[in-house]
């Protein structure tokens, strides 16, 4: 947990780009911008001598020359309707390169007590004033500082006391093709008041093969007895950089279940955090990562148990092929006096190629004595007995491996309860396993 060393601060790409904010007249978030600017000025760019960034190759960022959105040669978005999920026909927010598009959005179908819209339209809302940028807690993180300085629009989801969203909310983030690399700053604020319930499908999709960086910052507040089911799908362009920071605060008797599926981006760094604010909570931070080629997928998570009686679950499954690299650091904090915690963490890695790389570091810091924390991390290839068993039942070696990969990956998405999204993810898993059972991925199992 070393913070950036203060003497190493040099002007970064962010400082340069921050000079020409695209909308200087927009004073909506002045306070947030001033704070973010101060943070940006006092924060260095991460590098591999910092423990938290030891394994992560940041060259895809440092070697790229990013342009301001106005100079990037942004191409128009086409065919975006194919990404609309039918369940959210009337509960959809669409953002293109971080900017809200009302014409593609549809928000009539959520029922009483549910507000869904663009943050920019709610600057006077007490909820927004109380929580926006107040929940972000990423010390020494230049990416959140940059997002705070630059974001213009964002998804705002608010549920009044007892409100149950009648449909899942789809927050569709699209990134267009462009001539030059650009940076998008999606933002999200979700506040679920007492006893409310909502499912959120947050989708990030690259429409081209271009390089861009997206820094989605998401703040979630789950009040007493409220439930949130949060599915996050990352299907960015294969040249993209995805630095997401979703943070959730869970109050008494609340539940927050999040499932992150990482498929795209050349470099992704996902830093989900869940912070317990009272007793009797239940939360999930599951992940599925399917990578190949030169992809780097990094997950640094925090599950912070601050009070007694919590159930937490983290199953992080990874399939690595080609020269891809997966990094996992799962921090589980159990504070002093946070008793009767039942916390489960497992990181399972299926390493399909000789050139692939996996770094995994479960990190449990437990200061209470009456807790149950199980954790495990495994890295392996297929069990040869499993392959032989399936072969002896008539499957070719390739087919057997395809079936085993598919089965391995499927477990993590079983809990996604929106049908079309579940189906979509099954198809994505199938597409990945199919593409990776070709001879190029052949691994000797003996």
């Amino acid at each position: 947990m070393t913070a950036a060393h203060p003497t190493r601060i040099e002007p970064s790409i962010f400082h340069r780009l921050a000079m020409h904010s695209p909308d200087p007249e927009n004073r909506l978030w002045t306070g947030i911008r001033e704070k973010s600017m101060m943070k940006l000025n006092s924060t260095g760019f991460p590098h591999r001598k910092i423990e938290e960034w030891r394994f992560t190759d940041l060259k895809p960022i440092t070697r790229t020359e990013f342009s301001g959105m106005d100079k990037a040669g942004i191409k128009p978005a086409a065919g975006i309707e194919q990404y609309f999920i039918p369940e959210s026909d009337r509960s959809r927010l669409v953002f293109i390169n971080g900017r809200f598009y009302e014409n593609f959005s549809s928000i009539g179908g959520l029922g009483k007590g549910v507000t869904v819209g663009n943050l920019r339209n709610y600057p006077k809302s007490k909820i927004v004033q109380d929580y926006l940028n107040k929940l972000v807690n990423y010390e020494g993180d230049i990416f959140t500082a940059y997002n705070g300085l630059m974001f213009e629009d964002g998804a705002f989801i608010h549920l009044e006391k007892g409100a149950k969203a009648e449909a899942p909310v789809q927050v569709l983030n699209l990134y267009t093709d462009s001539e030059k690399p650009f940076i998008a700053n999606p933002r999200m604020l979700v506040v679920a008041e007492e006893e409310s319930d909502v499912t959120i499908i947050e989708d990030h999709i690259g429409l081209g093969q271009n390089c861009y960086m997206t820094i989605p910052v998401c703040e979630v507040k789950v009040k007493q007895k409220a439930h949130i089911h949060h599915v996050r799908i990352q299907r960015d362009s294969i040249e993209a950089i995805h630095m997401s920071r979703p943070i959730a605060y869970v109050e008494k008797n609340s539940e927050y279940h999040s499932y992150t599926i990482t498929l795209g981006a050349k470099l992704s760094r996902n830093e989900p955090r869940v912070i317990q604010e009272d007793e009797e909570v239940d939360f999930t931070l599951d992940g599925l990562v399917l990578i190949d080629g030169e992809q780097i997928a990094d997950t640094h998570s925090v599950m912070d148990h601050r009070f007694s009686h919590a159930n937490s679950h983290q199953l992080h499954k990874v399939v690595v092929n080609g020269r891809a690299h997966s990094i996992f650091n799962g921090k589980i904090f159990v504070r002093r006096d946070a008793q009767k915690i039942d916390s489960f963490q497992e990181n399972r890695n299926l390493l399909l190629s000789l050139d692939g790389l996996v770094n995994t570091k479960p990190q449990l810091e437990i200061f209470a004595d009456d807790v149950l924390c199980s954790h495990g991390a495994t890295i392996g290839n297929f069990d040869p007995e499993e392959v032989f068993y399936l072969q002896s039942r008539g499957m070719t070696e390739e087919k057997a491996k395809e079936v085993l990969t598919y089965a391995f990956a499927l477990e993590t998405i079983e809990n996604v309860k929106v049908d079309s999204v579940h189906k979509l993810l099954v198809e994505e898993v199938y597409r990945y396993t199919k593409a990776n059972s070709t001879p190029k991925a052949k691994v000797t199992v003996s």
Partner: protein
Amino acid sequence: MLEIKNLHATVESEGTEILKGVNLTVQKGEIHAIMGPNGSGKSTLAKVVAGHPDYEITGGDILYNGESILELDPDERAHAGIFLAFQYPVEVPGVTNTTLLRESYNTIAASRGREELDPLEFDDYIKEKLDLVEMNPDFLGRSVNTGFSGGEKKRNEIFQMAVLQPALSLLDETDSGLDIDALRIVADGINKLHGNEDAVVLITHYQRLLNYIVPDFVHVMIGGRIAKSGGKELALELEEKGYDWLESLATVNGEAK
């Protein structure tokens, strides 16, 4: 149907020789029992015939319908009609019994000139087979062997045999771990499946199974070879006398273990 000629096999990673010249001929319609003490090579023989990659054939040959199968992958052997019921069936979490069996049935059907079945036809087809081993239909939707008891796993192997209809079944200690009722169910299933066109090789430790399935031939394996062959009465003799008298027989020429 199956002709094993002077077969030698070693564990590939260690080079330890397990099979030291096995000769065995199995004809259509026959049931053979292979018995013998622990470590004599019985299970290895079954795995080698099925094509397990851990073993290297260092001498001899395996002919199936007159042709050597040494170069065939395990799946190709399965396509040709060879089936191995595993001593320790493997758990495959995430793959349901139905998925596995439909995939298997259809690939094997295609190569053996049977008609492939679509999912609906296949459902009807496997439901019939469930009764044979008295299995609950819920079973089909469960992941292969995952969380099954020892007995359920063994029954599942025979269920798979029923569905896949192999020409040559190698049953590796299918009786071990079964209580007396489960043993009867499994044995009845095997008896019903066996006919004039297929052959069964039972690998077993105990004579007990042979009370239910009557073999045409009994072979005793000791030290990587078949030390003695005979009719079903040989099993009874073994039950009475143990393997010791055969072990001395096997070392007569001072060469084998």
